[in-house]
Each structure stands twice: as structure tokens, then as C-alpha cells.
């Protein structure tokens, strides 16, 4: 049985979808969970639902000051889950530079800023877990998602390089690459496209957020102490 008691875990983008499922799971395993999102009200509401001492805070990943303020409020953490992500899909020829910057900014630079802010505490403690949520799209690409795929592939490089730097400090850095998961992000996809994706998924179904959360929670546990720099797909066989 995994046990995360006495660990403080921060999950970005945890007011819904995969992030919320991860926050819930970590809390069930005994961690004190920090829920963050772009709506403070929603973050507090989700934290209340989760219970078990969870706390909700506003966080804007594009704003260094917002990240620093959060750090001041909650102090150092043991587990960081860089989950928050956005999409601004468009065919490459029609993709604007703003949509590129926005997605790279939140999905990739956000991971850099968050990790930079919170890793010092882990180095001092000589214990830490960082799990970055990437995507199978970062591994195999996808039509209309050049910006998203670039950010997610970037997260994989980030994970592997940082894992090497921090290994001697007993801090593991891993990535989890979900395939198509039933969340608000995939709910908006056109039915026809969903059917097409479904055909390509060997398991012939979309995954559930909980199926991602279980892998993340394992990587956060003591049981995963010798795993670092890995990318684990949770995609029903897609990639």
C-alpha cells in the first residue's frame, strides 16, 4: 500500500480533469494537498471536496510573482505535480504566434518557473518527487497541435535533463504521458474526430483521469525511489 503521509504535495491545474483526480488520489494516500487553479474560488471548493486538510489557492503560471506568492503562503513542498496545461489548437498554417507563445508559456515555461521556485526546498531536504504531465501528443504528434506537441515534447527533455541533475539529491523527476482521457479538454473534440481517435486506440476507449492518477501516485511514493527520468505512457496502447 502506497503511503504519502507527512508529505506536502502541490498539483497545478487541479480544479478539474486529470489534476483533480491526482490531487484526490494523493490526498487519499495521506499527503497534504495544495490545489491550484486560475480561479481561487474553484480551487478552494475542490480542496474542500477533497478534504483531509487540502488547501486551495489561486495560481497564474505565466506570472512569476503569483508563483512566489504561493510559495510564501504554503512554504516548501515534498511533491510537485506540474499538471496544468492549455490548448490553442489550429492548423499550423493558421496558428498565430500568440497561440504559440501562450501554449509554450503556460505548458512549458510554467513548468520551468514552478520547478525553479520549489526545488530548492527539496534539495535542502534531500527528498523530493517531481512528476510532469506531458502527453502522447508530445511523443507522436497530432494534427492541429504543433504548439501543444512542442510544449509537451519540451517537458520530456526537461524531465530527463533535470532528473540527471537532481538524482544525487534523492529527488526523482519523471513524466507521465496520458493519451486520450475523458476530461473537459477532450470533451470539446468533434464527435467525428473522437471516433477516429478511438479507432487508433488499441483499447478502443478513452482513459479515465483516475487511471492517470494511479501512475502519478506510484511515482510519488517510496516504492518508486529508483525510477527517474522516465516517461510513462497511460494511453491504452496508443503510444
Amino acid at each position, binding site marked *: 500500500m502506497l503511503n504519502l503521509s507527512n508529505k506536502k504535495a502541490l498539483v497545478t491545474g487541479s480544479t478539474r480533469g486529470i489534476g483533480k483526480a491526482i490531487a484526490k488520489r494523493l490526498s487519499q494516500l495521506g499527503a497534504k494537498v495544495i490545489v491550484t487553479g486560475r480561479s481561487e474560488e474553484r480551487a478552494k471548493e475542490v480542496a474542500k471536496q477533497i478534504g483531509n486538510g487540502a488547501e486551495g489557492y489561486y495560481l497564474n503560471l505565466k506570472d512569476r510573482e503569483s508563483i512566489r506568492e504561493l510559495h510564501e503562503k504554503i512554504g516548501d513542498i515534498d511533491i510537485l505535480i506540474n499538471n496544468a496545461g492549455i490548448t490553442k489548437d489550429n492548423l499550423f498554417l493558421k496558428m498565430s504566434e500568440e497561440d504559440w507563445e501562450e501554449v509554450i508559456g503556460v505548458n512549458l515555461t510554467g513548468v520551468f518557473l514552478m520547478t525553479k521556485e520549489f526545488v*530548492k526546498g527539496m*534539495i535542502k531536504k534531500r527528498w523530493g518527487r517531481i512528476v510532469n504531465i506531458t502527453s502522447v501528443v508530445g511523443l507522436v504528434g497530432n494534427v492541429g497541435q504543433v504548439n501543444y506537441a512542442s510544449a509537451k515534447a519540451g517537458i520530456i527533455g526537461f524531465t530527463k535533463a533535470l532528473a540527471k*541533475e*537532481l538524482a*544525487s*539529491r534523492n529527488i526523482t523527476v519523471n513524466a507521465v504521458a496520458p493519451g486520450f482521457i475523458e476530461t473537459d479538454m477532450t470533451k470539446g473534440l468533434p464527435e467525428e474526430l473522437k471516433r477516429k481517435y478511438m479507432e487508433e486506440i488499441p483499447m478502443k476507449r478513452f482513459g479515465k483521469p483516475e487511471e492517470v492518477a494511479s501512475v502519478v501516485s506510484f511515482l510519488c511514493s517510496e516504492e518508486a525511489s529508483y525510477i527517474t527520468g522516465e516517461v510513462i505512457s497511460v494511453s491504452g496502447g496508443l503510444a
Partner: protein
Amino acid sequence: MLEEKVYQIISDQLGVEKDKLSPDKKLIEDLGADSLDVVELIMAFEEEFGVEIPDEDAEKIQTVGDIIAYLKEKVGE
């Protein structure tokens, strides 16, 4: 006083007994620090002495004596 603090920080960071430290000891070769240890040490000195140590300066620091001399000049002791 400054020496004492520097010795304490190095001893805590690298897990080396304080009486094994002397100004001629090299952080990496003699005291077994790795590159991340050196960065952590620099951060610890910055915090303790309220100074900022630019990378160009940090790169020149090799021995315990280098640190003491550098900080004395910075802090103006």
C-alpha cells in the same frame, strides 16, 4: 567571526568536520563537493551574508580561503 560562519556552512553542507577545514582546502578536490554542492554553498553564503554572488565570481572560487577572502571584501569586514 566571518570565518567561523563560513566553516559552519561548509561543514553543514558537505558533511565535513569543522576541524578538517582550512583555507587551503579545495572544495571539489579536497572536500568532495560536486557541482550542485558548490551552487548550494554559494546560495547559502548569499543568504547568510545578504550578498549577491554573480556566476563570474562564483566560478573563481575554489578553496575555503577564496570564499573567506571574497566575502570579506563583499561584506567589507
